[in-house]
């Protein structure tokens, strides 16, 4: 372990945190503009051209707001909770690769890889950090010494534990397909086809479960305004609130990055040197295309999350729990079985059976939706 290597890690980590900081600021802008468009409004358009300076104005406002502390709060934990919430959101993407190992960035004669850490158990690292992320919200809720905040914290812990199971099981399908829990192997295994094609229902479960994990609409029970004031962050203001806010949006970025890596081919994309006319002049750009494709995929996935927020109403709490335990969990267990059998048949009988995985899992997913419809649809006696 040389000094230069430590310096490289430090710089890469610092740059990534800065990217997440800027990403948070402009994700709020993106969300407000996109939501406004969906609701037939214009959105923030006054600060700077197209309102592009709006995040900076918001940041200045939050910095200069008064810092207050409830007298009956648990001072230490009240102070620590926003930090404990933010740190997992920042470190969870450390194992995500942003470019192929074969095309490192060459800077000052030194080859720099497109990832911060190359863990052999990368997916498990993501799982373990995701399981720690709940503490911040729970502690914020408890230390505020406020009934609404407390209920928000309790709701979030129950919800996140429940959906973590479906989330972890949807990881297993990817590990089975890639035959490795290492992120680089998972991306390289998708050169023949993105896993979302082989495992469409698994990708859907992953996206739903992560929406619940980061407490986004329609699963934003911990901060359900109509019921709980602002939930776990009712008592927070100023920079402490800004940290909680940043944690929420950085978690959105993080899970979209992870979803892009696990199911949508990560940094893979069309080779730009094959473009007609201009392709031959673009050889220098190939090492930079990984991050560009990654950015595009994350951008599109983020739009999906904003779209969901604009479209779906908040789900009722008992139905949220029933959905997680009675539908997502059995369905993801069935998917693991289907994937494992499909891989075995593809290896031993004929490789065509590999495409039986998406077909059978789509059938299983349709059955789950049908079962949900049967239980949720309006009953005859309720119609009059």
């Amino acid at each position, binding site marked *: *372990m040389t000094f230069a290597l430590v310096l490289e890690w430090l710089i890469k980590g610092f740059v990534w945190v800065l990217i997440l900081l800027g990403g948070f600021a402009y994700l709020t802008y993106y969300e407000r503009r996109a939501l406004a468009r969906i609701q037939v409004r214009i959105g923030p358009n006054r600060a700077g051209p197209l309102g592009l300076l709006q995040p900076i104005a918001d940041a200045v406002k939050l910095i200069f707001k008064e810092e207050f502390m409830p007298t009956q709060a*648990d001072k230490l*934990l009240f102070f620590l909770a926003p930090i404990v919430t933010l740190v997992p959101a920042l470190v969870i993407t450390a194992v995500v690769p942003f470019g192929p190992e074969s095309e490192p960035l060459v800077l000052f004669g030194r080859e720099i890889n497109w990832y911060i850490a190359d*863990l*052999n*158990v990368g997916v*498990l*690292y993501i*799982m*373990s950090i*995701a*399981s*720690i992320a*709940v*503490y911040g919200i*729970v*502690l914020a*809720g*408890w230390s505020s010494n406020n009934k609404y905040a*407390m209920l928000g*914290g*309790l709701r979030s*812990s*129950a919800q*996140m*534990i429940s959906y*973590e199971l479906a989330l*972890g099981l949807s990881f297993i399908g990817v590990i089975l397909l890639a035959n*490795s*829990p*290492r992120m680089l192997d998972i991306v390289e295994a998708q050169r023949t086809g993105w896993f979302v094609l082989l495992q469409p229902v698994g990708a859907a479960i992953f996206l739903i479960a992560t929406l619940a994990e980061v407490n986004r609409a329609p699963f934003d029970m911990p901060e359900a305004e109509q019921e709980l004031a602002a939930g776990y962050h009712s008592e927070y203001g100023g920079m402490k609130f800004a940290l909680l806010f940043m944690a929420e949006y950085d978690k959105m970025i993080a899970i979209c990055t992870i979803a892009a890596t696990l199911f949508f081919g990560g940094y893979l994309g069309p080779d730009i040197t094959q473009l007609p006319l201009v392709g031959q002049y673009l050889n220098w750009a190939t090492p930079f295309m990984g991050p560009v494709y990654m950015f595009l995929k994350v951008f599109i996935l983020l739009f999906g999350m904003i779209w969901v927020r604009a479209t779906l109403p908040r789900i009722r709490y008992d139905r949220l729990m029933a959905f997680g335990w009675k539908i997502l969990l059995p369905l993801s267990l069935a998917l693991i079985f289907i994937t494992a059998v499909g891989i075995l048949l593809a290896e031993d009988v004929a490789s065509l059976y590999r495409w039986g995985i998406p077909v059978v899992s789509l059938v299983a997913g349709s059955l789950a939706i049908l079962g949900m419809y049967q239980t949720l649809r309006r009953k005859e006696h309720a119609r009059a």
Partner: protein
Amino acid sequence: MDFTLILFYVVAGVAAATAVGLLFSRNAVYAALFLVLNFACVAVFYLLLGAPFIAMAQITVYAGAIMVLFLFVIMLLGAEKLPRGGILPWQRPLAIGAAAILLAEAGYLLVQRVQSAAVLPDPGSFENSVSSLQQMAYLLFTDYLLPFEVTSILLLVAMVGAIVLTRQAKGAQR
């Protein structure tokens, strides 16, 4: 001095401090958080021993799932403040006796095996952990299949028991 050795001493100090904090804090929430920190330290020890899979499982299962449930129950019951004297008066002398026996055993082993105890496995095995993960899974489903299945059935029994205990009897008044 070796880097991993320095790391070990620092983390071991934190682990011991959090264990003491767990015992002596009078607030159940703080006690639970000290235990979480302690689990994290143990996970770092597993990493130092070249077992990243077990380290991640330690964090996911113990620090992530079990302790969140502990915290959940503590907060739900509002049982943050622990009583000063303790509820079971006979527990303290028994605990002191058991702790003395454990300390004596540990001290005896430390004196007896002071030469061989400090040998860590080859850190090179860390590089190879994907294959070691596969080996572990293979062992789990061949040599240790019976204990594995028995453990899972035990967990299933506990789960069914919890559901039976909390279920309301059909038609009964609350």
